[in-house]
């Protein structure tokens, strides 16, 4: 699984963190970041729901 995040679009809503907390986090600017070591989605099926949960399409997920 490949996750792409677009920090320029991110509005800091936290939907990604709520949906898949093991994979998504917010940095000190409260913008989206991936949890170190979990950039491949860590096999968490909830990651697939994040692109739809994000209010501004700042996250895309592609299957390898």
């Amino acid at each position, binding site marked *: 699984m490949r996750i792409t995040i677009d920090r320029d679009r991110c*509005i800091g809503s936290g939907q990604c963190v709520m949906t898949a907390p093991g994979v998504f986090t917010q940095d000190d600017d409260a913008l989206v970041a991936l949890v170190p070591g979990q950039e491949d989605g860590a096999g968490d099926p909830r990651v697939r729901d994040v692109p739809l949960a994000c209010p501004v399409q700042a996250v895309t997920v592609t299957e390898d």
Partner: protein
Amino acid sequence: MTETDISRPAPSAPPFPQDRTCPYQPPEAYTRWRGDRPLTRVTLFDGRPAWLITGHAEGRALLADPRLSSDWGHPVFPVVVRRTEGRGGLAFPLIGVDDPLHARQRRMLIPSFGVKRMNAIRPRLQDLVDRLLDDMLANGPVVDLVSAFALPVPSMAICELLGVPYGDHDFFEECSRDFVGAATSGEADAAFAQLYTYLHGLVAKKQAEPGDGLLDELIARQLEEGGLDHDEVVMIALVLLVAGHETTVNAIALGALTLMQHPEQIDVLLSDPDAVPRAVEELLRFTSVSDYLVRMATEEIEVGGETVRAGDAVLVSITLMNRDATAYQDPDVFDARRNARHHVGFGHGIHQCLGQNLARAELEIALGSLFARIPGLRPAVPLDQVPIKAGHDAQGPIELPVTW
């Protein structure tokens, strides 16, 4: 495809918004507007025709579409409430501007509303809620849940976050209530002027004697570096105070009322701590405190076989999107165990609520503690005697006498 010209009012287009009769159910008329079409035509109080978006998927796509504007300052931006008539030209930061100005303003505030930061203030919110519940238990029953509980929680939370001296909260609450509850634009302008003057003075005071709230940070980071001028800081403070207050008061009060009307769901809420966040999301979906959003099309957009033209008023029904049967099974059933994912209680797109994680923290702590501390809490009057807000306001009870 049917071609409809919205500039010619349809004689049959019903008025919008309408008042709820049940505090947590859409007005009877709204329920007839959902069905096969994701949008319908309505008429605003001033006779202007408008599109009302009712479909969950279509509404989310539109709220993320830059062809819909939130520019309140536009001379023909739709007016839904009489009190905001003639306010064209006044720049309301964040909520009333489009990108790129919106993005610039929002970027400055995002760090102050991050998930971690909001979780860090939970212990202080818990103390505050515990104290209010001590007082309630000492003074009741019967108690008005709105004034004794639902109102002070968000008021103290937002004052503390911003760094507004809590000693001023009575004054600020009164202005804020007068502003959102004003019947005429004259009344609203008077309340607005009072709030503005107060915040203007507060910002000046903070420049001289810095504290450690969000306003102090904004002043330090932006005013000093020239990123924002004094007036912008004052207007941002005003938007945060008003946006963070009224909605959350109603979400707590209407959330509590909805739970009391579904006692079996209170058991679900109390079943374990993880049940609380889930129940809160379902309450946000089910009650839709912010009933509708207002936009104006800046270009032609095809929606559900209709053509929305540039300049058309577009209202987005949060209530009906949250009750769309294609998105939620049995949408009119309140089920605290449901996964209410993708609800639009906080909106969608670039304007999605900036304070949502503060609001979640407040709701989880307030409702979780309220029912844990006072088992058997129930309304002291029948449901049809609970006075509720008008259809154009944030939805919720004006007063809610409770007993236990």
